[in-house]
C-alpha cells in the first residue's frame, strides 16, 4: 500500500514535469518563431516604405535645377536603392526569381551615384539624363503600386513569411499564391524597365565582350588537342591519365576542364579555352613540405615558367609568402612606353619545398588583354606631383593604365610613397590631373 502511494506520486511528479517541460518548449519555440516572423515582416514593410521614399526623392530631383541641391537629392536616391537592396536580401526570396528587381535597383543606384558625384554646377544634367530621371519617376510609381498590392494582400490575409519560407524551401512549383505571384510579376515589370531605361553603354558592351573572350585568336581545339595542351602546360608524361570534359552551353565562353591524379596521388585541375587553348587556371592540391626556396627564388621560377609558356610581356609586381607557398602576381608591361597595366594580371603559386608550380590563374590577363592604344600623358611627372597631398612623400613613380570608378581605362601617373607610417599608391590621371584612385598598401 505504502509502495503504491510512493510509486503513484513519483509517476505523477514525473508526468507533471514532462508536461510543464513540453509547455515551456512550446512557448520557447513560439517566441522564437514569432521573433523570426517579425524580422521578416519588418524587412518587408520597410521595403515598401523605402520604395515610397525613392519615388518621392526621384520626383524632387526632377524639380531641382541647381547643381548644389541636386547632388544631395541624387545621393539620397542612391542611398535608398542600397537600403532596399539590403532589405530584399533579408527576405526568404532566395528561390524566387527576384533578381531582375535587384538588378534594376542597382542600375538606378549607379546612375544616381555617378551623376551625383560629378560637378553638377559645371556639368549640369544633360537632356538624356533628365529624360531618364523622368522615366524612372514613372517606373518607380508602377513598382511602388505593385508592391502596395502585395502589401495589402499580406495584411488582408495575415500572410506569414515563415509559411512562405516553408513553401519556397520545398522548391515545388507554387501556384495561386497571391504574394509569390505578386513578386514574380513585379520582377517581370522591373526586367522590362531595366531594358527600356538603361541601354547598355559602349563601355558595358565592351566589358561584356571582354568577358566572353571573343577577342582570343586561334582555332577551336578538339578534346585530344586540349589534352595535349594540358600535358604541355603541367609537364605531364603519357602515363598520367587525364579526364577531360567540355563546358555546358550556359558558359560565357566555351572551355575544357581537365582533371587528373599526379604520380603521388594528388588531384590537379585545369581549365583552358576551347578557342586557341589558352590556360584559364591550373591548380594542384597538395601539402607543402619544408621550405627550401626563398620568395625571391620562387619569383625567378615563376617568371621562367611564364616565359616558357609564351607570356613574355609580364613582369613580377607583387609576391607574398604564405603557408609554404609563394603567391606571385605578374602584370603586363607595355614596351617601349613602359606602361604597367594592373588589370592584366597573372597569378602563379609556387610550392617553396620543391619550387613546383602549383597554381596558375590567367583569366584576368586573357579577359583584359585586348589591344589598346597607348598615348603620351599630357602631364609631366613633376606636374603630377603638384597634385598630390603635400605630406605625401613620393618614393617611386611610373606610368600605369587603370580602370577608374566610372569603369574607363585611363593612363595615369602612379606614385608609391608614404604618408606618416603608412604606404599608399596614388594614381593621377595623366591628362587632366584628377586623382583617380588612392590605395593604402
Amino acid at each position, binding site marked *: 500500500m505504502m509502495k503504491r502511494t510512493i510509486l503513484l506520486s513519483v509517476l505523477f511528479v514525473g508526468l507533471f514535469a514532462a508536461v510543464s517541460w513540453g509547455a515551456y518548449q512550446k512557448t520557447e519555440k513560439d517566441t522564437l518563431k514569432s521573433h523570426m516572423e517579425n524580422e521578416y515582416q519588418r524587412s518587408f514593410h520597410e521595403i515598401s516604405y523605402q520604395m515610397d521614399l525613392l519615388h518621392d526623392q526621384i520626383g524632387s530631383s526632377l524639380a531641382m535645377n541647381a547643381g548644389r541641391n541636386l547632388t544631395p537629392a541624387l545621393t539620397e536616391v542612391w542611398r535608398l536603392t542600397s537600403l532596399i537592396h539590403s532589405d530584399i536580401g533579408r527576405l526568404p*526570396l532566395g528561390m524566387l526569381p527576384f533578381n531582375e528587381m535587384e538588378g534594376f535597383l542597382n542600375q538606378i543606384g549607379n546612375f544616381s551615384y555617378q551623376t551625383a558625384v560629378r560637378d553638377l554646377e559645371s556639368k549640369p544634367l544633360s537632356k538624356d539624363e533628365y529624360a531618364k530621371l523622368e522615366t524612372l519617376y514613372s517606373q518607380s510609381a508602377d513598382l511602388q503600386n505593385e508592391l502596395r498590392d502585395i502589401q495589402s494582400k499580406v495584411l488582408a490575409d495575415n500572410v506569414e513569411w515563415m509559411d512562405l519560407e516553408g513553401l519556397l524551401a520545398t522548391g515545388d512549383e507554387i501556384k495561386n499564391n497571391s504574394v509569390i505571384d505578386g513578386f514574380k510579376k513585379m520582377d517581370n515589370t522591373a526586367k522590362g524597365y531595366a531594358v527600356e531605361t538603361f541601354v547598355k553603354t559602349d563601355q558595358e558592351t565592351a566589358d561584356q565582350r571582354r568577358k566572353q573572350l571573343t577577342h582570343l585568336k586561334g582555332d577551336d581545339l578538339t578534346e585530344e588537342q586540349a589534352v595535349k595542351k594540358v600535358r604541355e602546360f603541367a609537364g605531364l608524361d603519357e602515363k598520367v591519365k587525364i579526364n577531360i570534359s567540355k*563546358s555546358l552551353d550556359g*558558359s560565357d565562353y566555351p572551355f575544357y576542364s581537365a582533371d587528373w591524379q599526379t604520380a603521388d596521388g594528388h*588531384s590537379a*585541375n585545369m581549365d583552358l579555352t576551347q578557342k586557341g587553348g589558352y590556360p584559364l587556371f591550373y591548380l594542384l*592540391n597538395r601539402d607543402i613540405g619544408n621550405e627550401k626556396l626563398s620568395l625571391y627564388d620562387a619569383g625567378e621560377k615563376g617568371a621562367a615558367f611564364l616565359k616558357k609558356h609564351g607570356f613574355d610581356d609580364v613582369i613580377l609586381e607583387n609576391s607574398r609568402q604564405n603557408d609554404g607557398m609563394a603567391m606571385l602576381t605578374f602584370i603586363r608591361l607595355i614596351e617601349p612606353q613602359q606602361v604597367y597595366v594592373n588589370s592584366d594580371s597573372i597569378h602563379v603559386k609556387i610550392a617553396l619545398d620543391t619550387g613546383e608550380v602549383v597554381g596558375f*590563374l590567367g583569366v584576368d590577363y586573357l579577359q583584359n588583354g585586348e589591344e589598346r592604344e597607348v598615348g603620351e600623358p599630357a602631364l609631366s611627372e613633376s606636374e603630377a606631383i603638384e597634385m598630390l597631398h603635400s605630406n605625401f612623400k613620393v*618614393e617611386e613613380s611610373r606610368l600605369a593604365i587603370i580602370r577608374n570608378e566610372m569603369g574607363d581605362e585611363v593612363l595615369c601617373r602612379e606614385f608609391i610613397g*608614404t604618408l606618416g607610417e603608412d604606404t599608399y599608391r596614388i594614381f593621377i590621371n595623366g591628362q587632366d590631373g584628377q586623382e583617380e584612385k588612392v590605395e593604402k598598401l
Partner: protein
Amino acid sequence: MTKKCGLFLIIVMLAHGLFFTDESHAFSGQVVQRGAYGDDVIELQSRLQYIGYYEGKIDGDFGWGTYWALRNFQQDYGLDIDGLAGDTTRQKLVSVSDYDENYVRSNIEKGNKFTYYGGVPLDQQVKKGDGKAAPPQNAPEYPPGYSETDIQLMANAVYGEARGEPYIGQVAVAAVILNRIEDDEFPNTASGVIFEPLAFTAVADGQIWLTPNEQAKRAVIDAINGWDPSENALYYFNPDTATSGWIWTRPQIKQIGEHIFCL
C-alpha cells in the same frame, strides 16, 4: 645596480657584436624580398632597427615599412637601391649592425612588445606582454580586402555545403559566394550573401556551424586569390536532390563532383 647591469649588458652586446659580425651563419644565404616571411626577415628587421633605419615591429613580415627602411639603408651606404636583401646588401648590413638572436626570438615567442635599437640597454627595450604567445610562426597573411573572420565564415559555409566534394568543388563553392558578393543582384558582403534566407541549405539546417577543416579554409583562400573553377557561376545545385524547377532554367556552365554550376 641596474646601471651596472645595463653597462654590463652593453659590454656583452658589443663583445657579442665583435665576435659575431663576420660570422657567416647570419642570414640563410637567400635573397630576401618584400612579401617574404620568416627568420631571415626577423634578422633583417632587427639589424635595420639596430642601426636606426627600421622603427616598426620586428615580426618577420617583410612589408612596406621594412622595404622603405632597407632602401634608405641601401641609399646611405651607396648600394643598389632595389629593396632586395641580396648578398652585397646583407654583407654590408651584417658588418655595420648586430643581431642578438636569442633576445629577439625569445621576445617574439613570449609575445612581448620590444625594440632592438643599438646602444640602448636591452632590458629597457622590453615591455612584458600578456604572456600570450605571438601569432604563430607562419601566420598566413590573408589576401588583401578580407579579414580573418570573413574567411572563417566562408570556410564554415564551404565546409557545411561541400565537405563531401573534391577540393576543386570546394574552391568552386567559395568562388560562387565571392561571385555573388561582386554581383549587383546579391548582397554586397560575405555575411549578407551567406545568410541570405534560403540561399544555402547548410545555413538553413545549421550545418554551417560545424567546425571546418583546414582544407575548407585553403579552398576559400584560393578562391579569394582569384581561382574560380566554377567559371563565374552564381548558383549551383545537386541534380539528384534539387527540388526547385526554377534552378534548372539557369544557364549551366559545368559540373564538378555532385554539383552543377550555373549563371
